[in-house]
Each structure stands twice: as C-alpha cells, then as structure tokens.
C-alpha cells in the first residue's frame, strides 16, 4: 500500500503497509511504532493541555497501554478514515478528555474554566508541533552521523576527520555564531594533501549528513519517494518560519 500523499505538515506520513504489519505483528514492532510517535504526541498533548504537562509521560504511557497496545486498536486506523496521525491525535485528545472526566469526580485535575481555555490556536499548535518534529529529526540525524563518523571501520581511518570538519566548518558557525576556521588552519589540523582532498572531506560530510537525514525520515515516512518529499517539506517549513523570524 502506498504512503499517503504529501501534505504541508511534516508530521510523519503514514506508511500504511507498515501499519498493517504493525497491527498484526508482535509487541516489538508495536513498541517501535509507539516510540516513533512518542515525542510528537507528547508535544501535541502538552500543547493541547498545557496544565497537564507534568503528567504528559504518564498519560502517554496509559494511552499506549490502553489504546495502542490493545489488540485491534491499530486496525481502527483505517486509511479510509483519514490520516493515521490525525486519528492518533484525535484518539489521544479523546483519551485525555475521558481521563479528565473520570478523574473529575474524585479530584478534578483542572478547572472547567481552565479546560475551556486550554486548546491553543490550531496554527500555533501545528507549527509548534512541526518545529519540535523538525528538531527531533535533525538532532537524531546529527547524533547518528557523529556516532557513525567516530566509530569508523578499519578501512576508514580518516572518517573521524569528516565529523570534525563538519562540526568546525558548519555546525559551530551555524549554531554558535562562531567564525569557521580558515582554510589554512584546516590543512594543518587535518593533514589535508590538496584542495581536492579538503573538498572531498567536506563533501563526504555533507553526503553522510544527507544519508542519515534520509534514513531517519524514511523510518517513519516509509519509502524513498515519501522520504524525499518529507525532506523537502521540512526544508520549506523551516525556511518559511525563518523568513518570519
């Protein structure tokens, strides 16, 4: 089954084939699916019910056990009923509201007035969610890239240099506003033999970054084409936000 079409949101597009398998399969696969959606759901929960942020993990755990791990629940996420992510979000929202209604009799966790004020503006909520998602994807990409470069195979003795060059030339200037080291300094530091050697090291870094980015996204988007669309959506979304800031 094909992944659902692209949307403006960068929330993971549903891989329905994976979902079908997940619905039928073992606990390990379900666990992976839950962990995959855990962080976005937590962000969604906290943004939708700000007063429950201290209980977010517990509520999500309950949601996972009561809903996601319940046999047959995932089958309800029928493609014909809409996007899986919307289904998941609606389910979580209803689950939390049920939880609040049940708890209200004994010890109301929030006042009615507070609840009425709870929902954030849909656009803000969506952007906050998407930005958090983008951060998660990029952080995971860089974490994997660093681990990959710092644990090279015996046939890749210079792979450690790739991460260092990437960090010095790109990451630190972007995130810390530091000046990138001059070309001459790179020659000495990394023993670069020629400009081609230097360029290839930096190009390799970019390729490794891109490969890990694709892999991280493919794990939830499913197929190559969906992952490529997702990367573009990520770029467009961040560029749009950057223009406004």
């Amino acid at each position, binding site marked *: 089954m094909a992944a659902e079409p692209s949307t403006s949101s960068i929330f993971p597009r549903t891989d329905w084939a994976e979902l079908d398998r997940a619905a039928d399969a073992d606990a390990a696969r379900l666990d992976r699916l839950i962990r995959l959606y855990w962080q976005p759901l937590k962000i969604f929960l906290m943004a939708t019910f700000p007063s429950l942020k201290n209980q977010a993990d517990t509520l999500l755990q309950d949601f996972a056990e009561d809903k996601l791990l319940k046999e047959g629940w995932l089958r309800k996420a029928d493609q014909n009923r809409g996007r899986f992510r919307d289904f998941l979000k609606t389910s979580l929202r209803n689950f939390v509201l049920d939880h609040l209604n049940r708890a209200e009799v004994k010890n109301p966790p929030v006042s009615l007035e507070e609840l009425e004020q709870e929902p954030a503006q849909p656009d803000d909520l969506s952007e906050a969610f998407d*930005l958090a998602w*983008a*951060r998660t994807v*990029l*952080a995971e990409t*860089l*974490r994997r890239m*660093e681990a990959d470069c710092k644990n090279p195979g015996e046939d890749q003795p210079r792979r450690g240099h790739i991460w260092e060059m990437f*960090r010095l030339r*790109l*990451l*630190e200037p*972007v*995130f*810390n506003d530091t000046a990138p080291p*001059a*070309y*001459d300094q790179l*020659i000495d530091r990394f023993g*670069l*033999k*020629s*400009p*081609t*050697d*230097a*360029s*290839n090291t*930096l*190009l390799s870094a*970019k*390729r490794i*970054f*891109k490969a890990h*980015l694709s892999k991280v996204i493919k794990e939830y988007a499913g197929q190559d084409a969906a992952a490529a669309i997702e990367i573009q959506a*990520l*770029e467009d979304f*961040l*560029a749009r*936000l*950057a223009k406004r*800031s």
Partner: protein
Amino acid sequence: MPDFDSSAAVFKSRANKLATLLATGGERARLWRPDELAAIFRHQMSAPMLVDLGTFDPRNATRLRTLSEAQGLLLKSFSELFHHPAPPIELLELIKDFAKANMDHPESGLPDEIAATLYYTSIAAALVRLDESISRLPDADLQRGLRWTMEQAWLDEKSRELLAEALEKASGTRKGAVS
C-alpha cells in the same frame, strides 16, 4: 575545547538556524568562501601532483611517477611542473584533463575558479615552455580564458607572468600539435 553537543544545539535553536543547517548541509551549497581562494590556490600549487592526478586516474599513477622523475626532473608539485623549463607534455595534458573534469563535474568540490586556473595554466605552460598547444579551444576563447585567469587577484606573480607570456603567444599564430 568543550565538547559540542549537537542535540542541545538543535533543540535550543530557532528555525532560521535549522534552515541554515539544512541549506548549507546540502551538497549544492558552496564549500568554500571566495576569500579563501588565495589559500586554496596556494595549497593547490604546492600539492603533490600524484595525490590529485593519481586519484583522478589511478591507472596513470605509475606512468606519472615515471614521468615526474624522469631525466632528473624532481617534479613534485603543480607549481614545480608549471615553472619547469621543460615540463613533460603528458603531465600538462593530464592536469588539463583533471581540471576540465572538475570544471564539468557538478559534484566536484574543487572551486571552479581553481579548476579553471589549473586548466589555463597547464595550457599556458605548454605554450610557453614547449611551444606546443594542448588545447582545442578557439583562439578567442583561449585568449579570453588566459586573460580571465591573469585577472584573478589571488594568483601568484610567477603564474601571472607565465599566463601573460602565453597570452602574447596565443595572440600570434599558434603552432604545434593539437590534442
């Protein structure tokens, strides 16, 4: 230097920095700044030829070594070859091909300006040192290329003189084999 925590950096950064990371992390983004071209050119000229040319065409590595060491020529760097009174023409041709391949390759990391300078300087060295043409470029294009290379601010004086001499020759009647 304290460890760089990429995850912390990402989570505390605003969208504009994340957008910059994606844009500059992309392969299409320029690798080097224009103000680094002088250092890159110096590095290129002092780099051992075997490093670049041997990688460019590994089958030629042995031939390159033989050529560069033949007849007592201790040609180790690009600069030494260009400024040798009698450089082996095969080496100049190989450099020209290496430079051309980099100019034509969309994924080449070598700045176009450096690749183009190598290209025209190899042609200039053949013209001036050997009185040979190793280029099929029309005269006008060759002269334009030589002139453009001479005008690069980061070029060293020796190379500029070589190019000026070649331009003078190219402005007259060219002779010699064309390959």
